[in-house]
């Protein structure tokens, strides 16, 4: 025996609600059925929602304000392929390497700026799309 409204089954013979009775989805999943609906942060490096420490070549004199955005192709880390060093948390004094990320990132530090022409200040960035 099932429970129907206008010929549409709401509860089937196994006493389970039908997913069509609940049109809303949670995190892309129907709320009827088994399993868990939690949202998990993407653990992949460079995915939307993840943070990174970068320098950027964008902005006037590399002056970047909070909430400014940049393309992933304009994000770098302080390092030299010639000399084999990587110093991600300090200013880059010339040599930079690609950050290897794509999409759009938001500058989440208050401000990053150096007064030296070739220097770029390391800051926190969050990928937003």
């Amino acid at each position, binding site marked *: 025996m099932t429970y129907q*409204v206008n010929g549409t*089954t*709401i509860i089937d013979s196994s006493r389970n609600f039908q997913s069509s009775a609940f049109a*809303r989805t949670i995190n892309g999943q129907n*709320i009827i059925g088994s399993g868990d609906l939690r949202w998990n942060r993407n653990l992949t490096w460079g995915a939307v*929602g993840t943070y990174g420490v970068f320098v950027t070549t964008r902005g006037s004199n590399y002056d970047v304000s*909070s909430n400014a955005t940049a393309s992933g192709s304009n994000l770098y880390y302080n390092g030299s392929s010639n000399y084999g060093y990587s110093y991600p948390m300090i200013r880059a004094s010339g040599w930079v390497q690609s950050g290897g990320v794509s999409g759009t990132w938001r500058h989440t530090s208050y*401000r990053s700026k150096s007064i030296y022409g070739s220097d770029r*200040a390391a800051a926190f960035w969050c990928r937003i799309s």
Partner: protein
Amino acid sequence: MAYSINGTQYVNSSGQFTGSHLFKTLNGYDALGSGNVDTFPSGTNGSWGSSHNVVGSLCSAFNLSYSNMNYGDGVSGSSLYHFKWSLGYEFLPCEYWRNSTSDLHYSYLSGTWRALNFHTSNSSANHNSLFIRIS
């Protein structure tokens, strides 16, 4: 034909539940209705802390409210300062210490932040730490 009890509709004529009073809300959305509800933390574009100053944001700062800060300690955003240098012409978020408050810039952060470093020592100098906004 819909399904109602004492005049309160529970299922509409299309066979969908409509009694929103039956369930709690999810991130402010009714559990019933159409469309998807994402339960990721606040912030737009599916990210956590997509601004520098919202709940969930990460921030490096100098905590001037007290020393000997431990992981898990909470601090008001009004006590967090950012590093500046060269009379304020440089802003270096990852610079690790400064021995004068004149080299620090008031950040205008709001809410409460939680220290994410294990310990920040007590000394005459100020040390940069990592914080997450918790409220």
